[in-house]
């Protein structure tokens, strides 16, 4: 399956429209103006690939996943999983997709782990003997083999998340869609869950899409990153590309005197991809997308007054925050 597009999305747009007047007899809606949740996005995920759909709340991640699982119809464009059109209500689509929600409410918390899995398995059409074997297999895979007879309420948030993962794996789907899988799990539990997801997906050679707004999860799991913001794709590629496209190094230059520092500021400020963040006495801190040599070239003879140079890689968290903040300023929101 490697190398072949497993998930293919083309020009996908979803606009939530306000309810028609007759619908308001039944239900008052909060949607008063049209909301463009996805705006002509395209992406593809190959077999064996783990793809992080990243972005802040309201970026369109859950809308995208609902379309890919057939729960939501797009306004325009197409989405397919293993060639099956996701825009139609399709039991075939749901046979090839395993879905895990970050909300543990989708479990029957008064039932045991095994009973939850039995119910899902029977809806998948699995017969008793095969179902028993599969349940034992997925419980072992997620580390819940010893607590199969424990009810959902008696499980920790981390264990419930693992049970949800087991439910998603039960029918051996080639594609996993994980919607903020670590949503209610503590940091240690999140790390364990992410490791588990990585191990299981590697062992079973699954294509995985997972959504997150947590940068540590992107770095831990995402081989490919799709950065969404207000329904637009800001970036598609691996994390190195993301840094390459968005990363700006932070460089602190310490000069032999404050006068040299001031002179350097006049030479640097306003250049294409370098900006002065702070100046303090003999120190100048820059954010730059250029190589340090290019910056020093621009300083000319003043470069000889540099006492020390400190290069710092900006954490991905900060890079994303800056990019998203810039976008927020330049856009006027999601409303169409």
């Amino acid at each position, binding site marked *: 399956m490697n190398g072949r597009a497993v998930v293919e999305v083309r020009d996908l747009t979803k606009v*939530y*429209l306000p*309810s028609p007047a007759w*619908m308001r007899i*039944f*239900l008052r809606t909060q949607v008063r103006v049209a909301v463009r949740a996805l705006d002509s996005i395209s992406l593809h995920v190959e077999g064996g690939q783990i793809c992080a759909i990243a972005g802040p709340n309201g970026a369109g991640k859950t*809308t995208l996943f*609902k379309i890919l*699982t*057939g*729960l*939501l*119809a797009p306004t325009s464009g197409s989405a397919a999983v293993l060639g099956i059109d996701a825009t139609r*209500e399709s*039991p*075939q689509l*749901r*046979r090839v*997709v395993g*879905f895990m*929600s970050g*909300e543990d*409410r*989708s*479990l*029957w918390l*008064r*039932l045991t782990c095994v*009973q939850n899995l*039995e*119910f*899902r398995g*029977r*809806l*998948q*059409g699995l*017969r008793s003997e095969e179902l028993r074997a599969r349940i034992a297999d997925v419980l072992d895979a997620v580390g819940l083999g010893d607590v199969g007879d424990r009810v959902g309420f008696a499980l920790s948030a981390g264990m419930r998340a693992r049970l949800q993962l087991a*439910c998603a794996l039960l*029918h051996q789907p080639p594609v996993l869609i994980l919607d903020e899988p670590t949503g209610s799990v503590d940091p240690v539990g999140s790390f364990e869950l992410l490791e588990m997801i990585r191990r299981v997906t590697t062992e079973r050679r699954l294509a995985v899409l997972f959504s997150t707004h947590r940068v540590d999860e992107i770095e831990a799991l995402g081989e490919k990153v799709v950065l969404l913001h207000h329904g637009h794709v800001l970036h598609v590629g691996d994390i190195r590309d993301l840094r390459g496209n968005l990363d700006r190094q932070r460089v602190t230059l310490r000069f032999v005197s404050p006068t040299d520092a001031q002179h350097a500021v006049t030479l640097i400020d306003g250049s294409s991809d370098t900006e002065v963040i702070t100046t303090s006495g003999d120190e100048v801190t820059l954010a730059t997308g250029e190589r340090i040599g290019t910056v020093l070239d621009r300083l000319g003879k003043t470069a000889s007054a540099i006492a020390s140079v400190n290069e710092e890689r900006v954490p991905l968290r900060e890079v994303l925050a800056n990019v998203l903040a810039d976008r927020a300023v330049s856009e006027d929101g999601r409303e169409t």
Partner: protein
Amino acid sequence: MLVVLGAFIRVGYLMSMSYPLSFASDQLATLAPIVTYHFIARLIAVPSTNVAGDYYTFVIIGFLTSRLLAGGLRGVGDELEDAVREGRFESLLIQPVPWRALPLGLAQWPVIWRWVNAITVALVSLALGAHYRWGGLPIAVVVVLLGSTATMAIGNLAAGVKLLAKRTDPILTFYGIAVLIFAGVAYPIQLLPHYVRIFSYAIPETYVISALRKLLMPAGHTLPGPSATSVIVGLLIFNIVVFPLSLWLFGRTLEYGRKTGLLGGY
């Protein structure tokens, strides 16, 4: 399909059994009216209208039938509302089960539970003085099954409304009132003014209750109303037309929910 229906029945059973006190109190609650009717029946030992000479059995059959049929009527909507409110509805929709089959699955346990409850009530009513003609039981079961299917069809339509309306349930509220007043549960519909009886004739419950009284009461043949055979034929025609239509409409409602993003919210 049987495996899927079995899964819904099992999960319904397990959920009911996980609340044992609620389960037991539900059973007891249905016994209260039959005790009340026992004493009302003693008050009117010589009824003024035709109740086949036995008001207690007359009213118990009306009460039991309306409860049995309510399982089909309310089952889908109630289960759907629980699933939406507790956050499980989307996880159901994501299973590879045709969406139009979901109402069938969701209604299974409520219907079965009402049957178990009806048997209990019937046995207790025997001890309180009800009289049944057991020979009519097999055909009575057929009539109730057809009646349940008919009310399930109405329940599917109501469930569609519930998908959009989430909490209110206008169809079933009005329907429940109509059954109580017009279907002849506690009194013969002949007591109703002529111009009101048109509502009685529009409700499947009226025919099912009437047929069951004819079949199960020792002097049931003296009661007015259509024969059991004509009721069976009428229900068959109703079910053949309305039941598939109700599933289709439920599917269309889900499709509308897919477009608007209303699925899963509450």
